[in-house]
């Protein structure tokens, strides 16, 4: 039996029956990571700390005679743009390669409070800017389904670690699709919660009005367990929502209860026919199972990719101005302060990050602000209105997660626009701040599963998890 292919509740059952210990579980995790070293899913690992915690969990369990929480003693990986006290926080960038975080993110603190064990920090595109995990200072991360392909990005390391059965769950971050797209490429579940549902305290800012911490897991239930723990108001994040967190568990299929919207606007003419046909087949299956499907219209989502890149690059150029070598960054010899700033930033940032800083600075500069950023903001409002109008008619919207299947390493790195288009189906949801869950379907092309994006109303995570659970049971 492969314990790392089990659900968290099944792992805990084994521990309860004394067929497995937390120490054995953690040792298995590090063994698996070593076996999959080639995937380069991790930037940092904490074996000593994790083994010590697992031993403490075993002692505690033997004393209590019961498991205090489903996450107790469970190994969790976190993306390396999320702070973990006393450990490196690199954002996969040379400029932060030696930076040690003085505090932990709220989401990480909440996980640890329930006994979860942070085993390491995963690879990503530098500062979460990318869709293939090929823009990391620490090297390319590979897809566990086929190593010649990219794992998606920017949370490629987290997706690769979960898809490669190295950990049951991992945290990622999603600004324009960075949890959902790699989840789709690696055949796992990826949840982007509503903006404000999970505290951003301790998440390194890329585009603050879009960034959220997300969850990657193999099973919907595991995703719900983690979401239950890390959701909720946090006074340290001024954009954290003061809205009560419902009970996500137990999951209950709502397939026959919800009204489901499908929009042609998500099925682009550039998408391959074979891919579109599989989605059509799946929607027919849903109808056969009694799911009520409605056609909806979202005409403004076609502006999403433009609006997203304008807003995100502008926010990034402002957020990344702090990396000046004084508060954060490299220690480089220079003759004056101007030369110092330029040397640190030029040597510290990679090509894609520099490109986005330049584009953002351009978009915010005098004479171009209204023309670019201003229009982007107005488009964003229109996209939000589109979704809200659709949600007057339906409870959930279904769409493909990605317009393509995973692509080969190096295939898109030379064409930034092609790379940006990877997120064309995920960015409208990010702009609207809505929750969305990407799940793998049973249909496959070249061994890669096709993925479905389940989009919910604001703070409608419960509905989308129950719906996904229903699909998982089909």
């Amino acid at each position, binding site marked *: 039996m492969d314990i790392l292919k089990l659900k968290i509740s099944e792992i805990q059952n084994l521990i309860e029956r004394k067929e497995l210990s937390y120490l054995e579980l953690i040792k298995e995790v590090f063994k698996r990571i070593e076996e999959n070293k080639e995937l380069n899913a991790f930037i940092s690992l904490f074996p000593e700390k994790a083994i010590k915690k697992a031993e403490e969990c075993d002692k505690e369990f033997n004393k209590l005679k019961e498991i205090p929480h489903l996450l107790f003693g469970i190994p969790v990986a976190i993306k390396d743009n999320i702070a973990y006290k006393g450990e490196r926080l690199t954002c996969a960038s040379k400029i932060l390669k030696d930076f040690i975080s003085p505090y932990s993110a709220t989401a990480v603190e909440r996980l640890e409070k329930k006994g979860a064990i942070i085993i390491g920090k995963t690879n990503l595109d530098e500062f979460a800017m990318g869709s293939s995990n090929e823009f990391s200072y620490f090297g390319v991360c590979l897809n566990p389904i086929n190593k010649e392909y990219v794992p998606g990005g920017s949370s490629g390391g987290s997706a690769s670690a979960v898809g490669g059965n190295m950990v049951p769950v991992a945290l990622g971050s999603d600004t324009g699709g960075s949890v959902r797209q790699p989840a789709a490429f690696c055949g796992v579940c990826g949840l982007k919660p509503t903006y404000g549902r999970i505290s951003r305290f301790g998440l390194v800012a890329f585009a603050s009005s879009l960034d959220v911490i997300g969850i990657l897991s193999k099973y919907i239930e595991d995703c719900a367990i983690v979401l239950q723990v890390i959701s909720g108001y946090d006074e340290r994040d001024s954009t954290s929502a003061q809205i009560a967190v419902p009970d996500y568990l137990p999951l209950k299929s709502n397939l026959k209860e919800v009204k489901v919207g499908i929009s042609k606007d998500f099925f682009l003419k550039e998408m391959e026919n074979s891919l579109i046909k599989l989605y059509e087949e799946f929607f027919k299956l849903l109808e056969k199972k009694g799911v009520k499907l409605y056609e909806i219209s979202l005409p403004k989502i076609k*502006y999403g990719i*433009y609006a997203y890149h*304008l807003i995100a690059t502008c926010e990034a150029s402002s957020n990344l101005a702090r990396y000046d070598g004084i508060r954060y960054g490299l220690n480089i010899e220079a003759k004056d302060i101007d030369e110092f700033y330029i040397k640190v930033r*030029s040597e510290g940032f990679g090509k894609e990050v*520099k490109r986005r800083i330049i584009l953002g600075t351009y978009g915010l500069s005098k004479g171009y602000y209204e023309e670019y950023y201003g229009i982007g903001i107005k488009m964003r409002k229109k996209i939000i209105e589109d979704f809200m109008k659709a949600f007057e008619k339906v409870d959930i919207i279904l769409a493909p997660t990605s317009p393509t299947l995973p692509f080969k390493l190096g295939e898109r790195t030379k064409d930034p626009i092609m790379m940006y288009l990877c997120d064309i189906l995920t960015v409208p949801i990010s702009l609207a701040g809505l929750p969305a869950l990407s799940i793998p379907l049973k249909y496959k092309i070249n061994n890669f599963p096709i993925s479905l994006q389940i989009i919910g109303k604001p703070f409608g995570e419960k509905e989308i998890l129950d719906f996904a659970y229903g699909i998982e049971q089909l």
Partner: protein
Amino acid sequence: MEEIIKKIIYLAKLNFPPEELEDFIKECGKIVNYFQELKKLSKEEKEICKETELTTKCPLREDTVKLGDRDFLKDLPNFKRGYFRIKKIL
């Protein structure tokens, strides 16, 4: 476009080796042209360019600034007598 991008590279406190600069400017130019599509699209639907009011329930709420009870200074390394020490810069 080339001059504008060169100026922005300076403003953003960045620098490129001469052999990379030309390609970088070309790539940026392509992306800026790609953004121009947005202007074309928005002209097709003129109402988008007008200021729009959000009449729907937006998940983004008003930002409120509040200092928590947590003592952030506790987390700082080398914090003594109201100051914190950083590494030598120049």
